[in-house]
């Protein structure tokens, strides 16, 4: 058999396999809308705010709920302790504080 036929057959088979996997994923997602709803019901009842991924530290277990002092959690400028802390950085939400310095020369109105 010609090399070109073998080569094109292999490439085409791979491409068809890949496309069918992508299509099956799409169809599977469409068929299982109820599954998403079941998960949302669970989230609603338990008021879940985070994925139960890494449970080693509270700032990686509850990414959205943790405060900012992550590493060693007890003093500022401390070193990162948990491995996942370098993969899941702190995401400060809901903080509105500002740091402001004013010059001593500035005349207050």
């Amino acid at each position, binding site marked *: 058999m010609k090399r070109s036929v073998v080569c094109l057959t292999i490439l085409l088979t791979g491409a068809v396999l890949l496309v069918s996997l992508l299509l099956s994923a799409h169809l599977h997602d469409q068929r299982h809308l109820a599954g998403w709803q079941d998960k949302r019901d669970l989230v609603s009842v338990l008021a879940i705010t985070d994925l139960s991924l890494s449970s080693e530290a509270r700032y990686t277990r509850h990414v*959205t709920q943790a405060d900012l002092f992550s590493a060693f959690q007890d003093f500022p400028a401390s070193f990162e302790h948990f491995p996942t802390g370098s993969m899941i950085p702190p995401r400060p939400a809901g903080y509105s504080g500002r740091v402001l310095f004013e010059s001593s020369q500035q005349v207050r109105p």
Partner: protein
Amino acid sequence: MILNVKLLEYSLSSLWRRKEKNIALIIVYALVIATLGSVLLLTHALKTEAVTTLTAAPEIVVQRTQGGRHELIPVTYAETIAGFPGVGKVTPRVWGYYYDSLIKANLTLVGVEGYHEQLELLEGRFPQAADECVIGAGVAEAFGPQIGDLLVLEDSSKRRSEFRVTGIFRAASNLLTNDLVVLQEAALRDFFAMPAELATDLTVQVYNPREVSTIAKKIAYFLPDSRPITREELLHTYDSLFNWRSGMMLAVFISALMAFLILAWDRATGISAEEKREIGILKALGWETSHVLGAKLREALLISLTAFIVGLLLAWLHVFVLGAPLLMPLLKGWSVLFPTFDLTRVVDLYQLAVLGCVTIIPYLACTLIPAWKAASSDPDDVMRG
């Protein structure tokens, strides 16, 4: 010209002459694409899971901060917040952590109040008495209990507390419930010795989604020591956390991309003497520069497409069939309770197109540029080296 069968035969023969080198090249190229593809598939699946399920999370969670850290919140704050127009129910939540020093597992203890309808993802039933509990599949797997068994924990004063397991969350909800132990709120309050006038945080129901940010600002204004976290911020957090351009997987992505660039650089700078001689002979036989470039383009495309398809199939197998065992340690760290994933098979075609662009196009360029240099030189010079 590219699809001409005879020319394709010629390109395949040319590749076959250096089969060891080209097979090794396809293997390395496919592994790089498999690594990049695994990162993209995993992060997209996790992101989809988070942003699809957490749309049912509370509209606002209000914490109290003191000294920059999370503190228990007075339940009276709930009355203040409930008085704002547009606010529905404000519910104090009681939850916290429990560390098992033997197997070094962290459990998340959550309190629920009142009666709840049966959930599809729960085998058994919700706790209906103070001495009952529901556990996540990860807890059940780590400690081995079954429905009807007793869960024994030591409370804050080291007293033995017993809870009958009335349900276990199904594995399909592992990403949400893996390390959970759900108790009745009063029982958990008693367990943590938390006073009735305090709670861990508050959840706020807002009737109109457009008013959520305004109400969050109001909460922060009227209760200055509070930290309101809106659902929008929560979804944005997960969206950016599992974004392939930033966050957790960037290190892996960059490493794989660097490996690919080294591979491409090697191709760009090192056209072999044999290849140069071949180009010289073709030119001497009357091939034009464009014909030589066409042949080289075909060779590069055959290698790239083979590696791309094989790489993506490997990535699919790695992430969706095997559960991404090579990437999971990055997320697991020292966690003892870590969910076994049944990831939803979702794929972002845009990301796959980007992956194709960042791997195939540079490789084609790196193959064509040295070939063009050789092809545009005098055939005699090229053949003599």
